[in-house]
């Protein structure tokens, strides 16, 4: 529900993002190569911007092994170590990294909105 709340709110609000690159340019799913502190910061900032400024915990190798990035609530567990949401009917928030021309762009898949990543190198999958 709350993931839906985020996605639906984004869909309605139409967050600001960089202008999409030339629509004629080939775009393909991609992975980050040679991640650096600057590229990690750029990714974190872009994801945060997509999610109303949320401080999202990301792995250092986010989008290195896959073009998909799933964001979910931190896995809250009960006193027995089991996830509170052990029967979760929802879905994660999902981003996809695209290589468009020479740019690395993440797309919030629920809305299609895009953010260009600075200081980031990526290769098509």
């Amino acid at each position, binding site marked *: 529900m709350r993931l839906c709340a985020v996605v639906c709110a984004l869909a309605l609000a139409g967050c600001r993002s960089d202008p999409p690159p030339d629509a004629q340019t080939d775009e393909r799913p991609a992975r980050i190569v040679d991640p650096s502190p600057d590229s990690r910061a750029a990714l974190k900032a872009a994801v945060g911007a997509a999610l109303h400024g*949320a401080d999202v915990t990301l792995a250092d190798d986010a989008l290195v092994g896959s073009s998909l990035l799933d964001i979910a609530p931190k896995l*809250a567990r009960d006193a027995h170590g089991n996830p509170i949401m052990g029967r979760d009917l929802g879905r994660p928030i999902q981003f996809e990294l695209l290589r468009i021309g020479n740019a690395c762009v993440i797309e919030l898949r629920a809305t299609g909105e895009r953010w260009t990543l600075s200081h980031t190198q990526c290769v098509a999958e």
Partner: protein
Amino acid sequence: MTRSRIVPLVAVATLISACGGGGSGGGGTSGPAWAAGVFQPADDFVAQCAHPRSGTDPFTGDPYPDRKGSALTENNWLRSWSNDLYLWYSEIVDRNPAQYTTPNYFDLLKTTATTASGQPKDRFHFTMATNDWEALAQSGVAPGYGATWAVIASEPPRQVVVAYTDPNTPATAAPVNLARGAEVLEVDGVDLVNDNTQNGIDALNEGLFPTQTGDAHTFTVQDAGSNTTRVVTMTSADVTSTPVQNVKTIATGSGAVGYMLFNDHLATAEQELIDAFTQLANAGVTDLVLDIRYNGGGYLDIASEVAFMIAGPARTAGKTFELTQFNSQHPSIDPVTGQTIVPLEFHSESLGLSAPAGQALPTLNLSRVYVLTGSGTCSASESIINSLQGVDVDVIQVGSTTCGKPYGFYPQDNCGTTYFSIEFQGVNQKGFGNYPDGFSPANTVGTAGAAVTGCSVADDFAHPLGDPLEGRLAAALAYRQAPACPAPTGFAPPGRAAETLAVPLDGVVHKSVWQQNRIMRR
């Protein structure tokens, strides 16, 4: 002497509570007079807060809906909301909301009935600060070392061992090289086995269960099978769990047997599961041992995919994986989403959680499956067992009684506290979902959960997971050859029999400590 118990760890005890927490104090006097059995709509009281939040909700980008109210209006909202949505709403004793603090009132808004084993029927009644609940992270990423600890003995002499590790983490990097069965003897020089001081316990908590990255701690460990100890230093990091591990084929005289360790129903598991089942299908396995002893659940869609990949289309087409049932006031419409309730199918195609959407899933087309279970096998993992039984796949359970959580909820915020109150139960194709005491292998000693064919076998930390000599896997392989069990040693039911039957414990396995109570306390 004060006995120190190893229970969930650390300084996040305030973040989640099974007994209230958050909310407002004092029942207050403003609001409608209480009349037993008379309920106004919850919307009449929603977001009327003793301490309204101001500004923008960072999760939605919208202004907080809060306005000035009182503890009584918050209690009135809880009362009406519970009466509408709580699965066992008719078992709530209706009490005057003006006489309780909000946390205390929420605690009372549940059934007091017990299960056949004597456990409370509702063991899953929680609250959490909404700010904490709404914190986000990349799927499977949490601060830690990449070693999952099993707390076997919670009081001195304590025993903590490595249950499993995740690859490419501080725990598995040289020269640390931790592996299953390694026993932790000291943390930062504190005697884990015997120290009974608060300072010592605090140090153990901080070392074993870091809540942030960059914390370096030393551990004296004794590896499984070793007579010597060694000291390793690990620095906490945001580690990425690998939910599917140890995928392998075990050759036997009667065909190849597949094995996989499946630890979490994370989104990232989808692609790993597809890869694992593809590997085993290509290997031509004729049986599968699915190791879910440490799998506490997660996305139900992942469980549906797993069940399909085990059973195949012929057994599952048009069948229900799980049907969500709400209380009797909501027989056909999901009261939270407003959608018509329809059965969740066995997914035959990927959903795009981490694999490309719409791809046909591989399948082993099995008529039976062996599942290795423990007390940490919970929720969506139990759904795998229940759904397969619903379509007449023979499930053979080896291990301990599962946790017993056929329930779920939609978290609900009000006034800065998120409430978790059981709202629905999952049932299988045959309409069965009554396993509040878990599933138990048929030869389990003592009061048990719903009986499943198989063997009660304790966890075996002396062998790696996936090793044919590991106790549970060995018992499954032996049962496959001849349907007989070793003397029962498993743990059942959770929280009771182990203390009276003197059987070995599974240990309580603790993963990420985000929003979890303390592991150790006095």
